């Protein structure tokens, strides 16, 4: 898995992530599987000091980005300075250990 799978409605073109069984815009049920493309623009972010059990760190930066093909996704930001609107590159890396297993997720740098 090198990235996430997002979904594009074959009827109206609405881009969705995560998955739905009916399009959020037109209720159609057929989707093309797509991948996020291009640079990721940071729409919003937070720096979390009080993290859940199992994440033994402070200051984890999470943000929502929008890719050039319209996919929006939350991810872990690995940048020293964070600014709304900045352009980032996405990778797929371990983001959390759940039930003893490393889980892969989007990271942005």
């Amino acid at each position, binding site marked *: 898995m090198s990235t996430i799978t997002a979904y594009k409605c074959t009827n109206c073109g609405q881009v*969705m*992530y*995560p998955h739905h069984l009916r399009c*959020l815009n037109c209720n159609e049920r057929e989707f093309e599987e797509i991948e996020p493309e291009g640079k990721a623009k940071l*729409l*919003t*972010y*937070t*720096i*979390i*000091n*009080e*993290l*859940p*059990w*199992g*994440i033994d760190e402070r200051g*984890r930066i*999470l*943000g*929502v980005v929008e890719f050039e093909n319209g996919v*929006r*996704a*939350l*991810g*872990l930001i690995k940048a020293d300075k964070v600014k*709304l609107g900045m352009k980032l590159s996405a990778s797929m890396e371990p*983001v*959390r250990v*759940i039930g003893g297993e490393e*889980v892969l*997720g989007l990271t942005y740098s």
Partner: protein
Amino acid sequence: MRPVVIAGVGMIPFERRDEDSLVDMLSMAGLEAMDDAGIGEHPIDAVYVGNMASGLFNRQVSVASSVVDRLNLMPAAADRVENGPASGGSAVKNGFLAVASGYCDAVLVIGGEKMREVIGPRATDVVACMTHPLAEYIYGVTLPGLAGMFAQLYMEKYGITREHLALVSIKNQDNGILNPNAHIHMKITMEGILTHPQSHINNPVVAEPLHLYDCCPVSDGAAAVLLTTEELAASLGKAAVEIAGVAQATDTHTLQERSDPTDLKAVTIASQKAFSMAGMEPGDIDVAELHDAFTILEIAESEHAGFFAKGEAASAIKAGETRIGGKLPINPSGGLKARGHPVGATGVAQIVELVWQLRGEAGERQVEGAANGFSLNFGGFGNNVLAFVLRRR
């Protein structure tokens, strides 16, 4: 639908309650509501228990069955209602429908949560289980984290400052001092949480831009209402307050899929429907209990519910309009910030506070002459919202 009256209310103080189990707390609050109504030996047809996560917090499920057993209410119907932080509001809605439809004459609705049985980071994880498993949870996002991302956008769009957030926090903690059932009874000042160079020691960042005093505490507690027909309530001499409007609306699970993430559509729709059902407008409301799990939410909800135009709540707060004695007192109970937020209890506790206010029984925090009240119970991050309009009869 026939009218539904709140004949009795009950609440145990919200705090850290190591000595009481979840079922103890639910049962104590339920019994208080029964006694407040003076229901005596009259049968209770159904019990709805609002609770988010007893399985994860307390290793106990089927708590509604346990409550009817504890209170000897068998063979009453009993259901636990789970709807995240809106569990309490959803339980009240179910109770309302049961009485309004004619299916039940007397329904006991209890909300409660025992969160302090686990340590802080565990509680943070349990609450985060309401986020999307794939698109959110795996990244370690927390509810303060989602609120932080929302706050970045809302504050920038509407020119809200940390001072405005602090004013909400100070007001609600001032109100909490007047509420014997509130978890927090501590005065805070602008200097102590914002303007002093060392204020960050008292008020560290939880999730940028939100600090400790922008977030509700983690509490144990329970609250209850007894809903009946107007005839039964009148025979008990307890027909003072009715549920005039109730509505619920949903939105996308994740914040990122909303075309405008600053637009809390479910709050707007639920509020409008509740006002319409009651035949009222926001201007008719004398007192409101909003879901200030985070200070930014009190501001955003007061705008989306229609009490202020978008971007105008901050100046109203600064002018003192939302304090007790102001034009529209918001959260005279102390809100989630000071009363506490035992998750499943909150939607019920908001209604208990409104009933006390409309009956004129709110003591030092009484809003003079309050006749119409509004409450908003905000589930997920705005993906499941309930609004209630209460009227003094």
